[in-house]
């Protein structure tokens, strides 16, 4: 795949994303030693389809994993620390599996790990729902520049970036791309990024 414009470059293709998710799914099973009491929660918006795909892969690795009973979404809008400065977007649904999160190992799934503030908010949101045994973090891309003491347990790809670059994850179902054109793109410019 060639760069579309001089300022942007593709760092992951659809196949790269697929392989990274497959590896993360295996890592999760390995770290957790199975799939019992495992709950996968995607952080809207792009964490949700990623969590769903991780769930499908987990079910393929271990048939004891039931996506319908262990997959969910965790919205963090109300827990952000910048609500005074920025208008909140309309919250997305939070969907917790029927078993709840008490005593479970919860894997939070997001597309890009950057400042760590989203994850901090997610940890707060999670404590409003219950008390998991452990919380882990899986991200497709870790671009560095953490502002909080937070790290990911499972990373699809580490991408060193500068602060004035923007990392865009383009997923089928959220962005207008067909499945085969999914990608992670870096845009250089003073615009900076929020992701």
């Amino acid at each position, binding site marked *: 795949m060639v760069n579309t414009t001089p300022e942007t470059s593709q760092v992951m293709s659809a196949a790269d994303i697929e392989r990274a998710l497959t590896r993360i799914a295996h890592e999760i099973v390995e770290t957790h030693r199975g799939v019992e009491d495992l709950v996968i929660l995607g952080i809207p918006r792009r964490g949700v389809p990623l969590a769903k795909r991780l769930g499908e892969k987990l079910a393929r690795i271990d048939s004891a994993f039931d996506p319908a009973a262990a997959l969910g979404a965790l*919205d963090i*809008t*109300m*827990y952000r620390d910048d*609500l*005074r*400065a*920025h*208008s*909140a977007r*309309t*919250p*997305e*649904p*939070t969907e917790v599996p029927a078993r709840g999160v008490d005593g479970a190992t919860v894997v939070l799934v997001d597309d890009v790990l950057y400042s760590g503030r989203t994850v901090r908010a997610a940890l*707060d949101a999670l*404590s*409003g*729902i*219950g008390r998991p045994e452990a919380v882990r973090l899986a991200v497709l891309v870790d671009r560095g520049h953490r502002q909080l003491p937070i790290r990911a347990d499972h990373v699809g790809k580490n991408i060193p970036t500068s602060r004035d670059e923007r990392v865009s994850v383009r997923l089928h179902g959220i962005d207008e791309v067909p499945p085969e054109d999914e990608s992670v793109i870096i845009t250089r410019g003073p615009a900076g990024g929020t992701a």
Partner: protein
Amino acid sequence: MSLKHLLSTADLSYADALAILDTAEEMDAVSQREVKKLPTLRGRTVVNLFYEDSTRTRVSFEAAAKRLSADVVNFSAKGSSVSKGESLKDTVQTLGAMGADAIVIRHSASGAAAQLAASDWTEAAVVNAGDGTHEHPTQALLDALTLRRGWSAAHGSNPRGADLTGMKVLIVGDILHSRVARSNIWLLNTLGAQVSLVAPATLLPVGIDSWPVTVYYSLDEALAAAPDAVMMLRIQAERMGGAYFPNSAEYTRRWGLTDERLAVVEQLRLGNTDSQVLILHPGPMNRGVEISAAAADSALSRITEQVSHGVSVRMAVLHLLLTGAKA
């Protein structure tokens, strides 16, 4: 949301109305959780400034603000310096000096909230919780949330992002004095519903022809037009200085939702679905006057649901008004 204040549903754009309703859906989900609290408005102060008696609206706003972790100051005119003659301006400036971020105001004068918002007395966001016979926007929003839930459930669709296109809503009772009716008419119209009114001719305002509604004078006739929801209004004894109708028995006979009429309503169906229609009432009810006990407690009634939706909608409104940098 683009608004700084919530004064009237006539100011609400389609996008703002949907943003409030969709946010309220998520707030409603929080109310089902074990920990019914969000940190969103931590350190902010919400003042409930009530110049008129209203327990349910005040309690609902208070619960909403507390679930968002805001500090709540309740101010009621009774037993305060207002009874010593303090003006609205002085009261508001005093409260503003205490650091109010939002003022929820209920006042017997139409336009009180708008005057407060237009003044430079306070920087706070103003939420109209009922001004005279003008508007009561959060009541209309909670009614819309309730209607949208019922409409979506009957059609097996997701309420999020949906409007009320095609829904026929009948509002029954004292339209003349009802701020609930006015707020509902503008909001339901924005959301695409068809609104009809039925009332004694004495309880309809002058100039009703210019409103986007169909008017009936007989409840039986209005029910024959097969509405999808019937919203009963309270007969407001405190506003009944004049003789608008002979007596309450006469009112019940012609415009009340009696047991006989309930039987008619039970035969109606929601749109093209097999579901039954919805009965709403903003409360407090005069059982046996505008609504029979059987109707209020029937399976069609959404009255208790309206109360819980009230908290969710007010959470959404406070959240949207108090977050984000607004000039």
